[in-house]
């Protein structure tokens, strides 16, 4: 089986001012390399502005890498059409970004519909996924996003990302905007969920406790570079100053 995600020497340089000019020399992400296997969760941990979110966007090409290479299940991301690539990668963001004019069912069925699945198969898949994220399909399928609580909305966001059964899931602080109680609830559920699903995941957070709880491995980012990569156990014992700063905050 191929590795769901391989990242090699990934970098993003801010574009220069004029047209056709060389880059600005300012790197948001610099020389980042890691792989994520099936069933593995890599937590990218770092302060605001450390390049974690940029790294995620370079993987699904919401930003085009200026250096390095990303491979999804063995295929070079660069060789695929960006839209095709993104439909094979689940994406969950903090603000959720549900379509307010779509019902929960249509939101969850978005990628299958873009991929041209038969409607009965979509309906079935939506019911299945709502159950996976702990929402009763009969109650929620026909509701609109504004009729949901924050926690329910993010459950729908996760279900939407899983809809086409992508080999890789990218999560950008998915629980960051929730109240503390709902957050812990969703973190616990997510822990069991990821064991059941077996997807490869990259999970961005600045919350070190969340990171330690969910990670198979932790990648610590600082000023655009990956300064530490290892298991939570190794992270606890790491003597890198940034790791220590994060452990002190835990």
């Amino acid at each position, binding site marked *: 089986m191929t590795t769901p995600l391989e990242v090699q020497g990934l970098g993003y340089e801010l574009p220069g001012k004029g047209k056709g000019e060389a880059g600005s020399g300012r790197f948001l992400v610099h020389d980042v390399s890691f792989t994520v296997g099936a069933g593995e969760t890599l937590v990218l941990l770092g302060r605001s502005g450390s390049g974690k979110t940029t790294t995620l966007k370079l993987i699904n090409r919401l930003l085009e890498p200026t250096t390095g290479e990303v491979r999804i299940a063995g295929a070079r991301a660069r060789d695929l059409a960006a839209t095709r690539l*993104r439909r094979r990668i689940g994406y969950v963001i903090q*603000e*959720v970004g*549900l*379509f*307010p*004019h779509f019902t929960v069912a249509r939101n969850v069925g978005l990628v299958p519909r*873009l991929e041209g699945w038969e409607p009965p198969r979509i309906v079935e898949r939506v019911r299945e996924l709502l159950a996976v994220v702990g929402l009763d399909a009969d109650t929620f399928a026909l509701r609109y996003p504004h009729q949901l609580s924050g926690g329910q909305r993010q459950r729908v966001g996760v279900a*939407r990302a899983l809809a086409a059964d992508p080999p890789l899931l990218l999560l950008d602080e998915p629980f960051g905007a929730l109240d503390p109680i709902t957050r812990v609830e969703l973190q616990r559920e997510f822990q069991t969920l990821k064991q059941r699903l077996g997807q490869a995941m990259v999970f961005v957070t600045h919350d070190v406790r969340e990171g330690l709880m969910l990670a198979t491995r932790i990648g610590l980012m600082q000023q655009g570079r990956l300064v530490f990569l290892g298991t939570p156990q190794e992270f606890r014992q790491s003597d890198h100053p940034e790791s220590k700063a994060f452990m002190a905050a835990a």
Partner: protein
Amino acid sequence: MSLWEFYARNSGEVLGLVGQHVSLVASSTAIAIVLGVPVGIALTRRPAWRAPVLGLANVFQTIPSLALFGFLIPLPFIGGIGATTAIVALVVYALLPIVRNTYTGLAGVDPAVREAGRGMGMTDWQLLTQVELPLGLSVILAGVRVATVVSVGTATIAAAIGAGGLGVYIFRGVAVVDNTLILAGALPAALMALAADGLLGLAERRFAWRAT
């Protein structure tokens, strides 16, 4: 002679002028939508064009309507005496609110919604037609509403260049100093503006999606 007597005696003519008026407003607004919405969409894709295009539309808006009708008369194809010239002028006035509101409506879509759509693998066209336009529709309709209401009023002046419409009574009334005649044109025009405002306002609210 009272207004009601006037209407009773001239019902055929009144209905004809109302029809002309409606067709002036409807055709010019329709053309302005067909031209203005794509321009508004283009502005969201090319931010550098925004200031010059909206600026130009603004300048058109400042030309007094009677003067604009006058300017258009000597021009070939789009000018001359009659309804064509009037429609061209009305389109020019309707463009600004429609272009501006299309731009504002699309630009106002929650960035998180747009990012999610792109992140899920929607093409630019899918994002536009399935997300941005439906979510911006209420704001776009508000622009159409403003354009229509203004157009109902401005179209009365079109009678000055022989385009017909309810302005015929108003100009005639002014010429012979007859208030009844002025009212005969102004009243239905006012009612028409109110009706357009009400109906388009309903449509606008129908498509206002609540943010989460």
